[in-house]
């Protein structure tokens, strides 16, 4: 059986620290025996006590220190305990790390990744459940990635550091305990492969990768949910839905995402973010601009409600995007023409 996502991430960090003696990992409560709030950093500080540090509760300060290490030519990975708290590091990300790559009139490499455990469905309440990706969309010099069960995190993290641009890696908290997919197999019906020049986009299909009634684009945190919706659509509604999961959310890899969307002519973009100024809206803009003539329906967006995220499970469900919402959206888009 394939490893769990949290194990894959943990092994990725072990490998990166082993490969690069100039890499430092910083975060709150990341050292052993605790090993991080979600145990992603377990074992790292025992092997590299000097390069894996637990820090004070100072998200802005930690990301600043990491930016300083990167400025000095080193690499740094920061763990933010809950991605809600990355708000406290916004200045360092917006005004230092990302700007420094260009604002001095020449390219300055900043090898920095900020890891952000993200999302709801765990009953942690309004300030521990958010999906803050949208707040970082469109910052020059900053890339946004999201962990998925299809993308090996060693490749993703090494790739992010190699760009010399700072990046945020969002990690859906529910995903941690689920298993990675392996060998191109999702289940007895669905297959997957990684497409695009950097094998950045996971494509999940049934029967024929060139054929679909609708394309469903989701970030990694929704990948498993999207696959289960696609399965239901196939079995219950006879709708063939192809799922695309880009590892890099921003900048959008339009060249890889657009051809399958153009072929299907119908697309739904789903994400857990609350309404307003979403990643999906940006993606929809690109699709409308480049594929207007090829679309059989406008891009359909699915996201959580315009609301704080409640704690109690029965209330949380009324706000966060549900499988049924995605299912309904695809059905409406497919039957709408």
């Amino acid at each position, binding site marked *: 059986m394939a490893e769990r996502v949290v194990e894959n991430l943990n092994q990725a960090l072990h490998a990166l620290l082993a490969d690069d003696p100039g890499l430092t990992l910083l975060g709150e409560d990341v050292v052993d025996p605790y090993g991080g709030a979600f145990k992603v950093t377990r074992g790292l500080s025992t092997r590299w006590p000097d390069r894996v540090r637990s820090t004070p509760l100072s998200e802005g300060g930690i990301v600043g220190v990491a930016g*300083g290490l990167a*400025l000095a030519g080193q690499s740094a990975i920061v763990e933010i305990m809950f991605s809600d708290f990355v708000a406290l590091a916004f200045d360092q990300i917006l005004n230092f790390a990302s700007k420094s790559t260009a604002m*001095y009139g020449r390219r300055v490499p900043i090898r920095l990744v900020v890891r952000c455990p993200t999302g709801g469905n765990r009953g942690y309440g309004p300030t521990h459940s958010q999906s803050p990706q949208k707040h970082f969309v469109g910052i020059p010099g900053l890339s946004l990635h999201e962990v998925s069960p299809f993308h090996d995190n060693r490749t993703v993290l090494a790739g992010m550091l190699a760009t010399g641009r700072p990046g945020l890696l969002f990690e859906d908290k529910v995903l941690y305990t689920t298993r990675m997919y392996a060998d191109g197999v999702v289940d007895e019906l669905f297959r997957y492969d990684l497409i695009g020049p950097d094998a950045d986009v996971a494509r999940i299909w049934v029967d024929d990768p060139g054929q679909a009634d609708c394309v469903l684009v989701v970030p990694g945190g929704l990948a498993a949910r999207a696959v289960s919706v696609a399965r239901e659509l196939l079995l219950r509604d006879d709708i063939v839905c192809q799922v695309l999961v880009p590892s890099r959310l921003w900048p959008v890899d339009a060249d890889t995402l657009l051809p399958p969307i153009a072929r299907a002519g119908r697309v739904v973009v789903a994400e857990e973010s609350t309404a307003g100024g979403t990643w999906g809206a940006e993606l929809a803009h690109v699709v409308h601009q480049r594929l207007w003539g090829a679309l059989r329906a406008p891009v359909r967006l699915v996201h959580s409600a315009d609301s704080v995220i409640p704690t109690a499970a029965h209330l949380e469900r009324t706000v966060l995007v549900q499988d049924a919402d995605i299912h309904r959206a695809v059905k409406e888009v497919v039957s709408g023409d």
Partner: protein
Amino acid sequence: MTATRTEAPPTAPTRLADVDLDLLLLIRHFELSLLDMFGRGELHGTTHTCLGQEYVPVALRPLLTDGDFVFSNHRGHGHYLARFDDPHGLLAEVMGREGAVCHGVGGSQHILRDRYLSTGVQGESAPVAAGVALHLKRAEPGRLALVYLGDGTWGEGAVYEALNMAALWGLPLLLVVENNGIAQSTPTTAQLAGSIGGRARAFGVDHLRVTSTDTAVVRSALGPVLRRVRERCTPYVVELLTHRVGPHSKGDDNRRPDELAYAKAHDWYARYAEAYPEQFTAHDERQRAYVAQVVREVTGRPASRWAEADRG
């Protein structure tokens, strides 16, 4: 612990070596020229001059090595000129002319050259410098990261997060506070509770307060501090009580006449002129003429270009 130096306003400043006097005067005339050019509408945007504070980076200059990192702020022209002796590159940066240090992208307050960096958000550099100091401690022991801060910067939480980590981790981080008694238009007494020394002490970080504006006195006070930061790998806060003789930016000065007179009375420039007229007059004339020539030369250059490959 906190130490205080309370020299009375010196009636007779120490006579300086020509090289120090030239640098003080270069910075003074550079800043005066910028204000002139703004007044004539020849400059675009904004600038913050360090008139009255020139002696701080001049005092520090021989105490720093090329291996040390210097983090400057919005009021950084003196810091830059003391490190690089490059008025052409700096003016070209401010004006967006060919030969600009950062191709005119950064302007007056965003400059990166070798191990010198300035940026425009208050306090943001302190944790960054702590990160650099962490690297220096591990890879280049004996070197330090210096951050210039103003008194107003102590309103920013980033400073305390950096101080905390620097103290916990034993980082060679030197905070140089140019306390000019006014944050843009707000007097320090209205924006800073307690004291900078008390705040440093709260983190167990040593603090030295220097009231002299005499380059030689300041330098001899700071020498042992920098040695200590290097040798013991420890943070330190140096607070220089200084005097902003000019406006915050360009003509935005609401201070009362008596407050302005007080700042002017502490200005090293007039006091030095009075104490050593012969040395002063010759060097003052030379630097004034030199800066005028820099202005003419740089003004005549074509606009800077930002190549596609340099855009990050």
